[in-house]
């Protein structure tokens, strides 16, 4: 049975990691807390922008550090709302059918994303995907520390995680599929036998042309 590995942001949904994060920050216990968290995030914005250009992993770590101090209960309570109001509404029109086609073909469908696991499990459930590989917040004393547990899911690490997952599930990587929209996911696309670019950015589109990878538009 082949595995089908799906990146999420830009690939299946039009939002990125920032949108659900903002939703969380804007929905704290009271308006003062929300304003404080959003203000702190705003101050960090220039550093995040630089990090995004240099290294996706650093960007993820900076972004999710804004979750520091949020209780585990709150993370879970808001997850349903955040999924419904932010992620589900942003799904590309053909995304669900596309994933379903892979499920119908008997593929082991895996969501692999730099987003947070409690949101990605909800997305996986909605799409019918079987597994989730996503970032996990460190929780201490029932509160997020603002740090990510290792391994951080981003860039080349995704390729290693796919290899590891495929080996664990007994999938032949040559038979596996991977889908992404971003040039930063080239390592992940390169480890499988059947890569495909979904709504690709300009650099990935160019690469897809050079490598003759299929280009799919789910929008």
């Amino acid at each position: 049975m082949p595995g089908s590995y799906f990146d999420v942001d830009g690939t299946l949904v039009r939002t990125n990691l920032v949108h659900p994060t903002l939703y969380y920050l804007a929905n704290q216990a009271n308006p003062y807390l929300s304003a404080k968290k959003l203000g702190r995030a705003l101050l960090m914005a220039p550093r995040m922008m630089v990090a995004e250009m240099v290294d996706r992993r650093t960007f993820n770590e900076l972004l999710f550090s804004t979750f520091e101090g949020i209780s585990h209960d709150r993370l879970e309570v808001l997850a349903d709302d955040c999924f419904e109001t932010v992620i589900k509404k942003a799904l590309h029109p053909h995304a669900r059918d596309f994933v379903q086609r892979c499920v119908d073909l008997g593929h082991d469908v895996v969501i692999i994303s730099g987003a947070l696991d409690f949101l990605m499990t909800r997305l996986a459930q909605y799409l019918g995907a079987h597994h989730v590989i996503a970032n996990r917040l460190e929780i201490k004393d029932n509160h997020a520390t603002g740090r990510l547990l290792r391994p951080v899911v981003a860039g080349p690490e995704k390729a290693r995680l796919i290899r590891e997952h495929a080996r664990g599930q007994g999938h032949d990587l040559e038979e596996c599929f991977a889908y992404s929209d971003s040039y930063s996911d080239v390592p992940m696309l390169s480890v499988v036998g059947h890569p495909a670019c979904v709504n690709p950015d300009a650099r990935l589109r160019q690469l897809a042309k050079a490598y003759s990878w299929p280009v799919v538009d789910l929008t």
Partner: protein
Amino acid sequence: MSNPLVVTLDRKSAPRTIFSGDRLIEVDMPPGTRVFYPRPPMEGLKDVDAAIRYALNHPVGMDPLHALLRPGMKVTIAIDDISLPLPPMRRPDIRERVLTIVLQTLADHAVEDYEMIIATSVHRRMTADEVRHVVGDKIFDAHWPDRLYNHDAEDAKNMVEICTTEQGEIVEINRRAAESDLIIYVNLNLVPMDGGHKSVSVGLCGYKSLRSHHNPKVMRDCHSYMDPKSSALATSVERMGQQMEKHLKVFHIETTVNNRMFDDPLAFLGKNEDDLTGRERAALKALTFTLSKLPQPARQAIFQRVPSPYGVTGVFAGACEPVHELTLAKSYEQYAVPIKGQADILVSGIPYISPYNVNSFLNPLLVQVMAQGYLFNLYKGVPMVKKGGTMIICHPCTDQFDNDHHAPYIEFVHRLLPETRDAMELHKRFEKKFASNPAYIEMYRFGNAYHPAHPFFMWYWGEAGRQWLGRVIVVGADNEYIPKLLGYETARSMPEALEMARDTAPRDPSITMLHIPPIAVAESSA
């Protein structure tokens, strides 16, 4: 009496000018070579609209169209896609003229529940502009995209199994058509392998049905695609069509066109080089020179953006088989050229176009389709070349593909062909999995790509030729890699290719050259 369409060259004969992709090349053929030319275009019908009305009112084997209609009924009109004719027909396309009259007839009989489906099967979806070209502005603006749209063979909920033949062939077609009280099929017949039962049972079917006949075994049993009676493919399609029409009512409208592929300024391309006037000879030289200097996109634009001024030679309507008999007769009248004796060596240029690269590049897999599929099969009777003989083709075999239209072809050529050229092995080991690749399916359904099963079908299309021919030698390839993948040898020039072919041919081999396009079908006997 000698046949002016089969010319035997002598020492004084001028060089022949043939296509090598979108260029023209001059080749000196040895004395004794027989060159096989197409018939001149037949006279087109003077009043096409009158012929359409006459056919609808005087159909064969069925009541007139108006007698089949009643208010409130559900009708589906299926239309041949843009793979025919080649190049596309100058507007108004005959399909527009037929549709205009059919829609008027439906309106006259208060038939409001009708939809038009472009019968693409697993071909790529036609773009809006291409559909507009075929059906005309008025029909397009009034119906696209809600009541005029492309068939989608992968839309599982809109496909339905009608029946299964005794041979186990699954007949599955578009649900809208299957649930209609009447299907009207609007065909444009370019060559004898088009039309008939192929129209509905292939045009509106899916992969499940196509697998029954588009496979290496059936293709190996095809002894000429251009003669339906000798084609196992046509036999299977006919069987499925007959079964299907036990369940569905289909009113077939078939049309034939002449072979006026080139307009007057270029009409000399179909003529014997020795018969060209001084002006035509100069024009041919100028065209050959110009094409040799232009970049490829410009050459493609010259040939593909100029539609052809085909004349309509026949309109027939009614029940499938009697209609198709008339169509075939008209088709042979235009194309069939009697030729006696099989050659040891068959020579042909490969032109820039095939049914599968309208508005895109003729990629290497399609070069193979043209050589061992279409051109080898342009006969009725026996093949133009002896069993085990050599085919020499002229084409650059450039490693270039259209990334949108032919995405799955690229992987087929560069990933599967290096593994094996054996059609049976490709079929058994790779086809099913490849044909379900979700990315390619998505590109077929919502982009403009051919279905991922299509490159396999294209390879099988060359199977009969591959089994028959001993060797294929390419003249003018711009690389060694692609010809090798296709199983071809390469030569730098025609004399070198002929020299190579002589190595495995009898002494003083007979040579036949196909001088196409325009299209001709050899009515050949041993």
